[in-house]
């Protein structure tokens, strides 16, 4: 199916999968580590103003 140029077609597809795949995986890993860090910080008793306001109005609504 790839003919004699297979030596160039396959690497280019592999490289494409590699580059886009690693960007995707990198973004997910960064997301997970930041989510964890955020929870650790918020668990430390520090609320963002908007979160505090949300809790306030959920409490009294």
């Amino acid at each position, binding site marked *: *199916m790839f003919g004699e140029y297979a030596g160039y077609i396959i690497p280019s597809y592999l490289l*494409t999968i590699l580059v886009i795949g690693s960007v995707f995986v990198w973004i997910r890993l960064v997301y997970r580590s930041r989510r964890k860090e955020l929870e650790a910080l918020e668990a430390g008793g520090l609320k963002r103003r908007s979160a505090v306001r949300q809790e306030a109005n959920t409490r009294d609504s």
Partner: protein
Amino acid sequence: MSDALTEEKRSQGFWAWLTGLANPTRFMALTDAIMPFIASITVLALAAGLYMAFTAPEDYQQGETVLIMFIHVPAAWLAMMCYSVMSLSALGTLVWRHPLADVSLRAAAPIGAAFTLLALVTGSLWGKPMWGTWWVWDARLTSVLVLLIIYLGIITLGRALEEPTQAAKALAVTTLIGFVNIPIIKFSVDWWNTLHQPASVSRFDRPAMDAAFLYPLLIMALAYMLMFFTLHLMNMRNEILRRRIRTLKIRAAEAG
């Protein structure tokens, strides 16, 4: 009369939705909801594109290497499109003061750089059987290379300026300066290339595009765009988290 009203209400609805996006918390909630949906559409488009690409009839002139075109050309288009998204975000920061504009700019830069790198690599792989060398200072490839340098510059500037508000303007202006210069670079590189017309390199023209190749190419381009859209939204969420962590840390310092 009534459809004018509904039209007006719908556009108001759309506008409200857009400004609603400005609030990061709502943006996070919204993107959380539509993320799986967009991801599945991207996968679908990608599958369709690849299927059509691989069942396209063999090109008489280039043989199977046309398969590389299906991933090279969309990557090059995406490199351009991503930069325009960044320039739009730059306008968002400077003109409309949209709070998420800088987030979108910073999030799009690495993805754009990745697509530009892909365009260069697949271009070189495609050119090797044609030109016999891995890299030729062909007008298009060279301007894409210069674009890659501009991307890297913006990413490095973004990493250097950590404090978001002060950095937003600098990033926006740099992006817009780049945007203005891209056509100038493109023109001068073309001119430079024709001026030094190297005899040894046969002028490489895109083959006349008949339908058998156009549709797979367009579908692949659509798939690439959806991929960019997904990655961009995901990276914007990362950027918002980075800023939240930063404000919490500063507040933690003050709370002492």
